[in-house]
C-alpha cells in the first residue's frame, strides 16, 4: 500500500466504464464526457434499486406482520436506527472526502465513556455532552493528523486508531468495566437525549433528522461540500490549492468523529450506562449503509439521503425479521443476501441496457484470455 494513495490519482480510476468494477466513485466529468447517454433506463433504473428494495421490505413485512406497519412500530424503528444514522452520516462525509473511517466505533465508545463518567461524577448534562464530544473529537483529530499531516492511508490509519482506541478504552475502564448510571440520579437533562420525545417524536430521531438535514445541505449546497466532493473524487485537480485540500480532509474526519461522538452520548443516555466496545457494532453497518446509498447516485457518490435509505433498509429488515419471529440464526443470511441483491441488481441493471444477455464482466471471465505471448 502506498502512503500517498490519498493524494494521487488512483490508477484504477480510469474512465473506461465497462471494465471499472462497478459503482466506484468515478469523477462525474469523465463519465459524462466519455460516453454520451443514450438510454435513460441505464441511468435511472439502478439508482432506484435501493428505494425499491426499501419499499419491498416495507410491503413484505406489512403483509407478514400485523404490527409492522403501525405508527408505533415505525416510530420505534426510526428511534432505534437514530444512532446508526448519526454514525453513518459521519461516515458519509468521510467517504465523500475520499477516505474511510474504521475508528468511528472508538469515537462513539470514548464519547459514551466520557459522558457516562461525567454524569456518574455528578457533572451537569451540558458538561457531559461537551466532554463526550471532546473525547470523540480527539479521535477525529488523531485521524486527521495521521491522514493529512503524515499522509498515512485512511484505512491503515483508522485501523490502527481502532486498535489503539480499544486499548485506551480498556485502560480507562480497568479492562472494560461498564459504568452504570442509576436512573434516579441521572439528571433529566441527560436522560432526555436518549429517552425523551418532542411532540411525540423521540429525541434521538430529532437529532438524526436535524443532523441529516444540516449535513445534506452542507455537502450538496455549499462551497465546502462541492470542494470536499472534488477532493474526494479528483484529488489531483488543480483548481483547489493543496492547503485547502488538507483543511477539507481535516474537516471531514472531525465531522465524522463528532457525529459518532454525538451517537455515543445518545447511546450512553439511552442505556443509562457505558458498555465497553459498543461502538464496534455500528462500523460495518455504517459502511454498508453508505455504500448502499451510493447506488442512488449516478456516480456512485455517497450522499446523505442515500445513506439514510441504507440505514432504513438495515433497521427495517432487522425489525421485520424480529417481528415475524425469524430466528437470529437466519437473520445474518437474510441481511447478507439482501445486501448482495440490492448491489448486484444495481450493477446488472446498469449493464443490461448495454449488453442484454451476459454481463460483460462475466463474459470476459468466460472468454479465453487475450494475453498474447
Amino acid at each position, binding site marked *: 500500500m502506498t502512503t500517498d494513495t490519498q493524494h494521487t490519482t488512483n490508477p484504477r480510476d480510469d474512465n473506461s466504464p465497462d471494465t471499472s468494477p462497478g459503482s466506484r466513485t468515478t469523477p462525474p466529468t469523465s463519465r459524462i464526457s466519455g460516453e454520451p447517454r443514450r438510454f435513460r433506463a441505464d441511468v435511472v433504473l439502478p439508482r432506484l434499486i435501493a428505494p425499491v428494495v426499501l419499499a419491498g421490505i416495507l410491503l413484505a413485512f406489512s403483509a407478514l*406482520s400485523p*404490527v409492522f406497519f*403501525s405508527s*408505533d*412500530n415505525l416510530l*420505534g424503528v426510526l428511534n*432505534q436506527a437514530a*444512532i446508526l444514522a448519526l454514525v453513518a452520516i459521519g461516515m458519509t462525509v468521510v467517504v465523500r472526502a475520499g477516505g474511510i473511517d474504521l475508528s468511528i466505533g472508538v469515537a462513539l465508545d470514548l464519547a459514551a*465513556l*466520557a459522558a457516562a*463518567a*461525567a454524569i*456518574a*461524577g*455528578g*457533572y*451537569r448534562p451540558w*458538561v457531559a455532552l*461537551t*466532554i463526550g464530544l*471532546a473525547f470523540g473529537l480527539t479521535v477525529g483529530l488523531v485521524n486527521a493528523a495521521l491522514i493529512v499531516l503524515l499522509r498515512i492511508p485512511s484505512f491503515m490509519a483508522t485501523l490502527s486508531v481502532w486498535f489503539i482506541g480499544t486499548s485506551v478504552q*480498556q*485502560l*480507562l*475502564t*480497568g*479492562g*472494560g*468495566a*461498564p*459504568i*452504570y448510571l*442509576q*436512573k*434516579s*440520579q441521572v*439528571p433529566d437533562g441527560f436522560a432526555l437525549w436518549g*429517552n425523551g420525545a418532542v411532540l411525540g417524536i423521540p429525541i434521538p430521531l430529532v437529532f438524526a433528522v436535524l443532523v441529516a438535514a444540516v449535513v445534506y445541505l452542507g455537502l450538496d449546497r455549499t462551497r465546502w461540500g462541492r470542494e470536499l466532493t472534488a477532493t474526494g473524487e479528483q484529488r489531483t485537480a488543480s483548481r483547489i490549492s493543496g492547503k485547502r485540500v488538507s483543511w477539507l480532509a481535516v474537516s471531514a474526519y472531525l465531522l465524522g468523529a463528532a457525529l459518532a461522538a454525538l451517537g455515543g452520548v445518545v*447511546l450512553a443516555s*439511552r*442505556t*443509562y*450506562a457505558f*458498555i*465497553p*466496545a*459498543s*461502538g*464496534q*457494532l455500528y462500523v460495518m453497518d455504517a459502511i454498508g449503509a453508505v455504500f448502499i446509498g451510493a447506488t442512488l447516485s449516478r456516480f456512485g457518490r455517497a450522499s446523505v439521503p442515500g445513506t439514510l435509505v441504507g440505514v432504513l433498509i438495515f433497521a427495517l429488515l*432487522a*425489525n421485520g425479521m*424480529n*417481528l*415475524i*419471529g*425469524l*430466528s*437470529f440464526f437466519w*437473520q445474518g443470511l437474510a441481511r447478507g443476501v439482501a445486501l448482495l441483491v440490492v448491489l448486484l441488481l444495481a450493477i446488472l441493471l446498469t449493464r443490461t441496457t448495454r449488453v442484454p444477455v451476459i454481463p460483460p464482466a462475466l463474459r470476459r471471465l468466460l472468454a479465453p484470455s487475450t494475453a498474447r505471448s
Partner: protein
Amino acid sequence: MKNSRPAVQATPLALKLLASSAALGLLVTGCSLKEPSSTTTPAPAASGAAAEQISPTDIPSLEGKTVGIAAKDIVHDFSRVVYDTVQARVEELGGEVIATQAEAKENKHVSDVENLIAQEPDAIIVILGDATTLGPALEKVNEAGIPLFTIDFQSEYSTNNVTSDNWVIGSTVARTIAENIGGEGQILVFNGFPGVAPCRIRYSELEVVLEDYPKIELIEPELQDKYEGTVEDAKQQINDALRRLPEGEIDAVWSCWDIPQIGAAQAIDAAGRDEIKVYGVDAEPGALDMIADPESSFTATVAQQTTVMGTRSADNVALFLSGAEDEVPTTSYLEPVFIDKDNVTEVRSELGI
C-alpha cells in the same frame, strides 16, 4: 517492568481526566459544572478493591512464588472482580503475578495459557473457560508439572476448582420464575453462550425444571445474546419482541447473565409492560440498581461471592504449594446469594456490591 494492576486505578484515571477537563471548563465559564442536587454516585467498579478478609490467617506465604493467571475476559463484573481479587490476594501473600486476559477470544485464551507455561510459574489459575477448548492447553500445563487451578469451570487437570454452584443457581432461578408466574406462561430466553460452561449449566437447569411445569413454554425463536454492545442490542430485540408478542404473551425474560437483562428491563419499563418479570445472574451493579427500583421489571438476580472466589483460589494455591495438599478440595463451592426486590438493599450492604 512491573506487573499490571489495572482496575483499581483505572476508573479514577478516567475521572481524573474528566475532572481536569471539567476544571478547564470551570475556569472559562465560571459557573458550577456539577448538578446541584445530585448525591454523587459511588465510583463505579470500585467494588473490586474491597476484598473481604474472611480467609483464615494461617494461609502460608507465597513468598518467592510466581502465579500465572489467565482470565477469559474482564468485560463483566464477575470476571473482572475475580481477576482483580486473585491478583490482589496473591500479592498480599507475597507472591508474584503474571496476569493475562483474553478479551473473550477463545483463541487468545488458549494462547495465554500456553504463554504462561513458558514462564514456568509455580501455579496457573484459569478464570472461566471451557474444558473442551482449553483441554489441550491444560493438558500441557499438566505435562509441564505446573499445578492448575480453575475458577468457575471443571477440568480433569484442575487441582482445585473454585466455583459457585451453577446447578443450584440455574435450578433456583428457574424455580423462582416458574413459581412467580404461577406455573404457567411463556418465557422469552436469550440464547446464552453455550460455550461458556456456567451459561450452559444454567440453561440446562432451566430446561430440567420446566419438565415439571408443562404449562410453561420457552418462546421461539430465542433471542441472540451478544458480547459486544449487549445492552443496546438486547433493548432493541426486546422492543421488537414486545410488539410481536402483545400483552399476555410474555411473562418472563431469562438470560444466563445480567447485562442483556439491563437492556431488556429498560425496554419493558419504557413500554409499561409491567406484567413481565426479568431475571438475570451475576449481580451487575446496573442490575442491582434496577432491582432496587420498585417500578422496574427487573425482578431478581444471583450474586456470586466473587471477591471470596478470587481470594479462595489464591489461598488454595498457597496451601497447595506449601504442601498442605489435603486441605485443598477438588471443588470449593461457594454459596450463591439470591437477590430480589425484598432483600436487595440489605444484601448489597452485606456483600459490599
